[in-house]
C-alpha cells in the first residue's frame, strides 16, 4: 500500500480551488459580473491564455497529491518500510522519466555524455571518449539510428495524440451541441489549443521515457522533468500569496474606508509603515529569520519535504504581507467613494447593521478591484521567485523551482561550449506562464474596469 503524504501547501491549494469553485457555483455572480467574465472569455486571447493557465494549475494540482511508495518487503518482518522519496500523481504520468539520472551534463536528445571519460574498450584497453548515457537512448545500438528512432517515435506520439485529442474534442463538441448550443466561447481556437496541449503532453510522455528531451544538468538530472516539477512551485507561490494577502486587504481596506476616523488613521499608519520597507529587503530579512527558526527546530520536521514546505509557506505568507498594502489602499479609496452613495445611506437608515452593509452593499461593489489586483500580482510573484533564488532567500534548495534552476545554471553559459538547455527550458516554462498571466490579466482588467485603475502598476 502506498502511504499518502499531506503537506500544508497541498491542503491550502486544494482548499483554495474548492472555495473558488464553490463560490462560483453557489453564490450566483451578479449579471454584471457574469457579463464581464463573458467579455473575457469571448475573446480568443482571453480564452486561450486562460486555458494555458488552467493547464499549469492542473499540473500543479496533480503534483500536489503526494505519497510514498513502500520498499520491497523483507521476509522477516511484516512491518512495511517506506521509501524516502516522495512522489506525486504527476510522477505516475511521467513514470518513464523517473529515476533516470545520468552522471553529468548531456545535450538534448543526446545518447552520449557531454564530457569525456576514461573507458575500457572490450579488449581491455583504456581510452578517453564520450561515454554512452546510462538511460538516454540506451535502447539504440549507435548514433546512426537516433534520428530515425526519434522520428518514428514522434510520428507514433503524434498519431496517438491526434486520436486522443480528437476523441476529446469530439465529445466536447457533442456536449456543446446538445446542451450549450449557441455558447459565446471561441470554441474553434479553444479546441485547437486543447488538441495541441494534449498531443504535446503525449509526445513528452512517450519520448521522455527514452531520451532526455531537454538534456540533463550538472548532476545528471533530467532538465525537462525539473522544469515540469517546478510548475507546482510557481503556481502555488502565486496563488497562496494572494490567498494570504486578499483577506488582509479586504478587511483593512474596507474598514478603513467605511469606519473612517481613528480606524482609518490606524490602518493608514499600518500600511504606510509596511510599504515603506522595500519588498525585497523585507522578504530577505524574513527568510533569514525563518531559516534560523528552522535550524533551531529541526526536530519538528521529520521529512526533508516538510521542512521545505514550511519554508515555502512562510515565503508565500511574506509575499502576501508585502503585497496587501497596494490593494488595501485601492480598496480604502473605493470604499470611501461607495459608502457615500444613496443606497448605502438608505440601508443604514433602514437599520441594516454595519456587517450587513459591508457584506451586502460594499463588498460586491469593490470586488472587481480584488480580482484585478490578484491577477496582476500573480505574474509578479512568479518573476520575483527567480530573483530571490539568486539572492539566496528563495524556496528551499531541495524544492524544484525555476529560480533554483536558473541560479544553478547561470554559470553554464560561460562554459565552452556553452550549456544552454538548462537555462533555456527554465526561461521557456516561466515565460509561457508569465506571458499568459499578463495577457489574461490585461483582458480581465479591460473587462472589469475599462477606465480607472489602468495606472495601478505605476506606484509599484
Amino acid at each position, binding site marked *: 500500500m502506498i502511504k499518502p503524504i499531506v503537506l500544508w501547501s497541498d491542503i491550502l491549494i486544494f482548499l483554495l480551488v474548492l472555495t473558488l469553485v464553490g463560490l462560483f457555483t453557489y453564490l450566483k455572480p451578479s449579471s454584471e459580473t457574469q457579463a464581464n467574465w463573458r467579455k473575457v472569455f469571448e475573446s480568443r486571447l482571453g480564452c486561450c491564455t486562460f486555458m494555458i493557465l488552467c493547464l499549469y494549475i492542473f499540473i500543479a494540482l496533480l503534483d500536489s497529491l503526494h505519497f510514498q511508495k513502500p520498499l520491497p518487503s523483507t521476509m522477516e518482518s511484516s512491518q512495511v518500510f517506506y521509501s524516502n522519496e516522495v512522489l506525486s500523481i504527476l510522477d505516475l504520468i511521467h513514470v518513464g522519466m523517473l529515476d533516470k539520472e545520468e552522471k553529468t551534463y548531456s545535450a538534448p536528445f543526446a545518447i552520449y555524455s557531454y564530457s569525456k571519460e576514461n573507458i575500457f574498450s572490450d579488449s581491455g584497453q583504456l581510452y578517453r571518449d564520450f561515454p554512452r548515457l546510462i538511460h538516454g537512448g540506451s535502447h539504440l545500438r549507435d548514433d546512426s539510428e537516433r534520428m530515425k528512432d526519434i522520428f518514428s517515435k514522434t510520428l507514433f506520439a503524434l498519431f496517438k495524440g491526434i486520436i486522443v485529442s480528437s476523441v476529446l474534442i469530439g465529445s466536447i463538441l457533442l456536449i456543446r451541441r446538445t446542451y450549450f448550443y449557441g455558447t459565446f466561447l471561441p470554441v474553434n481556437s479553444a479546441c485547437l489549443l486543447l488538441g495541441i496541449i494534449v498531443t504535446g503532453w503525449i509526445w513528452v510522455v512517450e519520448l521522455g521515457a527514452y531520451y532526455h528531451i531537454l538534456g540533463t544538468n550538472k548532476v545528471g538530472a533530467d532538465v525537462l522533468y525539473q522544469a515540469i516539477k517546478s510548475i507546482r512551485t510557481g503556481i502555488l507561490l502565486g496563488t497562496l500569496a494572494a490567498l494570504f494577502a486578499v483577506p488582509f486587504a479586504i478587511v483593512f481596506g474596507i474598514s478603513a474606508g467605511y469606519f473612517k476616523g481613528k480606524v482609518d488613521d490606524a490602518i493608514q499608519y499600518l500600511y504606510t509603515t509596511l510599504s515603506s*520597507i522595500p519588498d525585497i529587503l523585507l522578504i530577505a530579512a524574513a527568510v*533569514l529569520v525563518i531559516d534560523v527558526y528552522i535550524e533551531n527546530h529541526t526536530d519538528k520536521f521529520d521529512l526533508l519535504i516538510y521542512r521545505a514546505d514550511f519554508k515555502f509557506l512562510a515565503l508565500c505568507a511574506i509575499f502576501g504581507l508585502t503585497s496587501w498594502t497596494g490593494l488595501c489602499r485601492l480598496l480604502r479609496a473605493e470604499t470611501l467613494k461607495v459608502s457615500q452613495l444613496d443606497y448605502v445611506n438608505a440601508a443604514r437608515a433602514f437599520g441594516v447593521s454595519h456587517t450587513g452593509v459591508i457584506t451586502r452593499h460594499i463588498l460586491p461593489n469593490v470586488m472587481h478591484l480584488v480580482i484585478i489586483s490578484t491577477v496582476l500580482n500573480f505574474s509578479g510573484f512568479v518573476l520575483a521567485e527567480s530573483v530571490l533564488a539568486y539572492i539566496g532567500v528563495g524556496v528551499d534548495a531541495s524544492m524544484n523551482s525555476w529560480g533554483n534552476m536558473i541560479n544553478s545554471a547561470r554559470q553554464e553559459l560561460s562554459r565552452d561550449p*556553452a550549456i544552454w538547455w538548462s537555462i533555456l527550458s527554465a526561461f521557456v516554462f516561466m515565460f509561457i506562464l508569465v506571458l499568459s498571466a499578463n495577457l489574461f490579466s490585461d483582458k480581465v482588467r479591460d473587462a472589469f474596469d475599462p477606465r480607472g485603475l489602468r495606472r495601478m*502598476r505605476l506606484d509599484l
Partner: protein
Amino acid sequence: MWSYIFRRSFYALPILIGVNFFTFALFFMINSPDQMAQAQLGIKHISPEAVHEWKKARGYDRPLFFNDEKNGLDTVTKTIFFEKSVRLFIFDFGKTDEGRVILDEIKKRMWPSLAVALPVFVVGLAVSIFVSLIVVMFRASLFEFSVMVVCVAMFSISSMFYIIGGQFLFGKLWSLVPVSGFIADIGALKFLILPIIIGVISGFGGGVRIYRIIFLEEANKDYIRTARAKGVSELAILFRHLFPNGLIPILTGVVVVIPTLFLGSLVTESFFGIPGLGSFTIDGIRSQDFSIVRSMVFLSSVLYILGLLLTDISYTIADPRVRLT
C-alpha cells in the same frame, strides 16, 4: 509650503519608529539571540561559553527592552532594542559582523550604485516616454499592436534572463565589453555600459505599457480635440500639447524612486561585480549578517519616505493648481 514640509517630516517619525519596531520584532523576537548564536555557530556540541562569546562580540548579551541590573537611564539604554535600533535614528548603524563600520561602507558604496542606477533611470525614462509617444501617435494601427506585443513579451521576462543573456551575448559571444568588474575612475565607463543597457532594456516593456496608457488618456481629452479642430498639425499636438501634459503624471509618479537610486539594484550589481550598496546588501543577506540587513531596511525606508515627500512637492511644481496646506 515650508510648514507643510516640516509637518510632513514630523509625520515621518512615527512611521520610522514603526519600521524600526517591526524589524526589531522580526529579528529579535521570533528568534532569541541565543538561537541566532546557535544557528550561526552550528547546532551540535556547542558550549554555553561560545554562545556567550558570540553574543558579547556582537552586543547581543543584553536584555531585549529593560535592563533590571542597571540604574537610572541605563535601564533603557543598555538594552538590545536601544543599542540596535534607536541608534539608527542618528544614522549610527554600528559595525558589520566582520567589524567594518557600516556608515563608512554606505558612504563609500553609494557612488558606484548611483553611477549605474542614475543613467538607467534617466535613459530608461527617456526611451520609454519617447517610444510610448510614437506609439500613441500611430494609435490603432498594426504598428501599435506589434510594439505592444513586444512590450508585453519583454515585460514577462525575468530580469535575471536579461542580465544572463546580455552578459552572454555582449560579453562572451561578441566580446564587446568586459563581463563584469569595476574601477573607481573614468575608465569605469566600459564596465558600466553593459549594466546600463540591460537595465534600460529590462525596464522598457513595463514602462511603455504604463506611459502609453497615460498618454492615451490624455489624448482623449477635450483640449486635444480643440487643437485638432483649430487645425494644429499632428506633430505639434503631440509635442506641444500632449507631451507636456502627459509628462506631469509620469514625472510625479517616478519622483518617489529618486532618493532610492542610491541603494542601487541588488541583482544587477552583484552580477556585474559593482561594489555598490546593492551588492553590499546581498553580501549581508548571504553571510546572514543581520546588522547589514537591518541598516539597509532602515535606510531604504527613510529614503522612501523622503521620496513620498518629494512627490508631494513635485505636484506643486508641476501643476500650479495643487496647493499644499
